[in-house]
């Protein structure tokens, strides 16, 4: 919407002088700068927090982008490290998670009672709750904002669901071990990590995929994983594969499974290759024979998929759709796909090309926020201290986007068509009011520990002066005038609930 962008620029031009006068500061950047700062924070971050806004203002957009592309070098704020340190299940590996929180097994021939099983299932909720808390703390508080954005992006690309079997205890581990380390790395490494993580093998039923009539097993071929790896993870639905390729890839992945739990002899990994379940017959995949056998055959197939130009195009489209527009400009997708191919699937390199593109800079305000983006960006903008992420997680559920709760493997969409709805608008503005008034108690304690015995802190309302600093100069005239006309106590709610804030 070029008109809208023009409006933002005009608004920025008109009001930047009053803004600077009010702060008594000299303008350091060109008049369009506040709009550009907001744009880069809306896309590479989950919108501005006051600290990030001031940091970009201080060091400049280009340097901030360079920083974001190297997240390991960014020091995280103390409050984030404090909150993450409380979440004791984050560091457990998949085996430990299953042993501590998975189904109870008979001990010395004694089977667990139904009450014990129920209690164990309740305990297991803790794991997914901690994963949700970690996700929200990081999204709101982390200075490595681009990393958080890319973790969310890749999680949706490689979606798993917290109510499918053992994924209830593995979903956070999946994000920590298979997604986060590779979010800005090589696509091939990401694909391998995901395909070998037990959460994905469970979610797409590959734990049950085995050579038909394998000795001692009545189970057989299951196409689910093979199909979705091509349709969703790599080539894309129009990527040129056939039903025969689906069946072949299912045969290739026979034996990629999760080991049966063995308390006496805990193996090193939950995801294993079981040769007895593998179909060792020769295979032709995507028109070419596969040369490797056994476990290496699956890796060869994944390699072939990662290298395919169809995969490059599929990922390029998705990145451009997330960062630029629901219907991204085809020339940009072409350039990103070419960059993907030329760099062997280097995600960081593709993003650099994207962030330097004129299409990216011309697209401010064109994306309607998903419920996740809206809730996280509202919490960041509000400036309210975050000690209790639960109200934010509940809001995502109410808005139709429960965290880790997307049942289908295509993950959540990020388009306006998927999320803009009458009910959503009513609920979003209502959320904005509750948040801005401090009614959500984000500043209260989340844990029922010592703090719960203390009187709760008074409600912390959103900081309207900071909201004005971040958004004041770029709001549309209608929003600015409406905000100015209401009592001061309502202004923060109106800014966070404004049409301007619904887009990024």
């Amino acid at each position, binding site marked *: 919407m070029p008109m809208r962008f023009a409006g933002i620029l005009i608004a920025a031009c008109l009001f930047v002088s009053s803004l600077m006068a009010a702060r008594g500061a000299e303008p350091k950047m060109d008049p369009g700068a506040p709009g550009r700062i907001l744009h880069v924070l809306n896309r590479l971050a989950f919108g501005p927090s006051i600290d990030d806004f001031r940091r970009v203002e201080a060091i400049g957009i280009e340097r901030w982008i360079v920083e974001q592309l190297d997240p390991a070098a960014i020091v995280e704020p103390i409050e984030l490290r404090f909150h993450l340190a409380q979440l004791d299940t984050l560091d457990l590996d998949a085996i430990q998670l299953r042993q501590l929180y998975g189904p109870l097994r008979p001990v010395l021939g004694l089977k667990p009672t139904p009450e014990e099983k129920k209690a164990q299932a309740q305990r297991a909720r803790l794991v997914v709750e901690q994963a949700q808390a970690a996700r929200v703390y990081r999204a709101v508080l982390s200075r490595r904002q681009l990393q958080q954005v890319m973790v969310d992006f890749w999680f949706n690309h490689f979606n798993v669901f917290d109510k499918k079997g053992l994924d209830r205890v593995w979903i956070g581990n999946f994000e920590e071990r298979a997604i986060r380390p590779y979010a800005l790395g090589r696509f091939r490494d990401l694909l391998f990590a995901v395909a070998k993580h037990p959460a994905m093998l469970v979610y797409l039923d590959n734990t049950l995929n085995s050579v038909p009539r394998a000795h001692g097993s009545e189970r057989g071929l299951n196409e689910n994983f093979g199909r979705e790896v091509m349709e969703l993870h790599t080539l894309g639905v129009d990527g040129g594969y056939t039903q025969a390729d689906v069946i072949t890839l299912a045969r290739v992945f026979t034996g990629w499974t999760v080991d049966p739990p063995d308390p006496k002899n805990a193996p090193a990994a939950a995801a294993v290759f079981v040769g007895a379940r593998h179909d060792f017959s020769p295979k032709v995949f995507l028109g070419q024979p596969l040369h490797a056998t056994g476990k290496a055959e699956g890796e060869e197939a994944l390699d072939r998929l990662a290298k395919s130009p169809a995969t490059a195009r599929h990922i390029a489209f998705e990145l451009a759709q997330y960062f630029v527009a629901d219907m991204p400009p085809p020339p940009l997708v072409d350039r990103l796909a070419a960059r993907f191919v030329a760099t062997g699937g280097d995600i960081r390199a593709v993003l650099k090309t994207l962030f330097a593109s004129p299409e990216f800079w011309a697209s401010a305000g064109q994306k309607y926020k998903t419920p996740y983006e809206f809730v996280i960006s509202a919490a960041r903008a509000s400036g309210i201290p975050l000690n209790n992420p639960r109200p934010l997680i509940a809001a995502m559920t109410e808005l139709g986007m429960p965290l880790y709760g997307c049942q289908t493997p295509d993950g959540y969409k990020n388009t306006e068509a998927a999320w803009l*709805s009458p009910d*959503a608008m009513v609920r979003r503005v209502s959320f904005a009011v509750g948040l801005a008034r401090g009614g959500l108690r984000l500043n209260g304690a989340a844990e029922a520990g010592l703090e719960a015995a203390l009187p709760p802190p008074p409600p912390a309302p959103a900081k309207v002066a900071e909201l004005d600093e971040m958004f004041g100069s770029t709001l549309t005239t209608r929003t600015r005038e409406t905000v100015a006309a209401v009592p001061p106590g*309502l202004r923060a709610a109106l800014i966070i609930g404004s049409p301007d804030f619904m887009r990024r």
Partner: protein
Amino acid sequence: MQRSGISRRRLLAAPLAVALVSDAANAWAAAAEGGPKRLVVIMLRGAVDGLSVVVPYGEDAYYAARRSIAIGRPGSPGGALPLDGHFGLHPALAGLMPLWAEGGLAFVHAAGSPDPTRSHFDAQRYIESGTPGRDATPDGWMNRLLQALPGRRLPTDAVAVGPTLPRILIGGAPAANLTLGPNAARPLPIDQPELGGAFDRLYAADDALGRAYREGRSARAQLLADLAAEARAADNGAPLPAGFSGQASQLARLIARDQCIRLAFVALGGWDSHVDQGSATGPIANRLRALGDGIAALARGLGPAWRDTVVVVVSEFGRTVHENGDAGTDHGHGNVIWIAGGGIKGGRVYGEWPGLTPERLYQRRDLAVTTDFRAAIGVILERHLRLPDVKLVGVFPDAPAATPALTAMVPA
């Protein structure tokens, strides 16, 4: 009503939106008799196993292909409920048998999309766009249908249940979505006049956000008024049953009270039964029971308005005829469409049954499609909603016409 292929093709050359405008009121005078006609579409996302819903128990090939998950013959323990000597209903759908007996329930078997895709997401998109194989269609067929309906436009003409607006209802006409359930009428800050007024001013622009906001406000006002009136009514706000049955009861009350609602849409997930789908009992049985009880609750709750309502249940495709190695089924092709309503000629399984022997299967693996889903739904649009032929083409361009046998599903 005979349809001309030539006019159809000519209309197709025009963009969809153009084919729909013009002469609403005249052609619709006839439809004004009786109450307003309603259509409720229930979409089962994930591909329900239609061969477990309407079971071809008369076919040995069915039992040969499904050793552990077949629904038994009528009379056997957990067996199918006999419908017509060849087909039986899943036993978990016993709640629908009274409707079947009184002629308010029919099925169209071996129905589906002509597109061969086995991707859930593409197939759902095609069912919702009403244009199988065509990716560029920007709107959903229920929205095009809404535009073809006569009379004034209100956001509550078409309502989707849930927190998002599904593709099937996206398009040029306003449509609302509502979150139903126990908390539907919980007060929101926006209900307060001062805040509501301020946000109304914020969203006064005539753009996508402004329109969605105003539709949401007006739908919510309607919902609160209806539910408030309901709370004073006979049941005195008794708690609703959990899950879909409760939502269906609530939806029935809304539709029965609110003369505006013409079209409603509900999506239910969790049908993608690759593993251990069960047979007479199990995961699919549990879901079917909730769905069947919900449809029965909808019929009951609508009271006299049931006469003017048709419920259609569709899914994106069927599942493999053979059970897979995991006591489940994989993505297939043909499926069964359910049609319920007070004014239909039910108690029959419609459609041409292709059989389940290997040479009759689609790609030797799936139930073939002998009835295009658009032809089946087209009968409802044409004869229940009295959509003129020329408008039907706009809703379902390129769709094959229904056979006379299928057309008999809705008496003229």
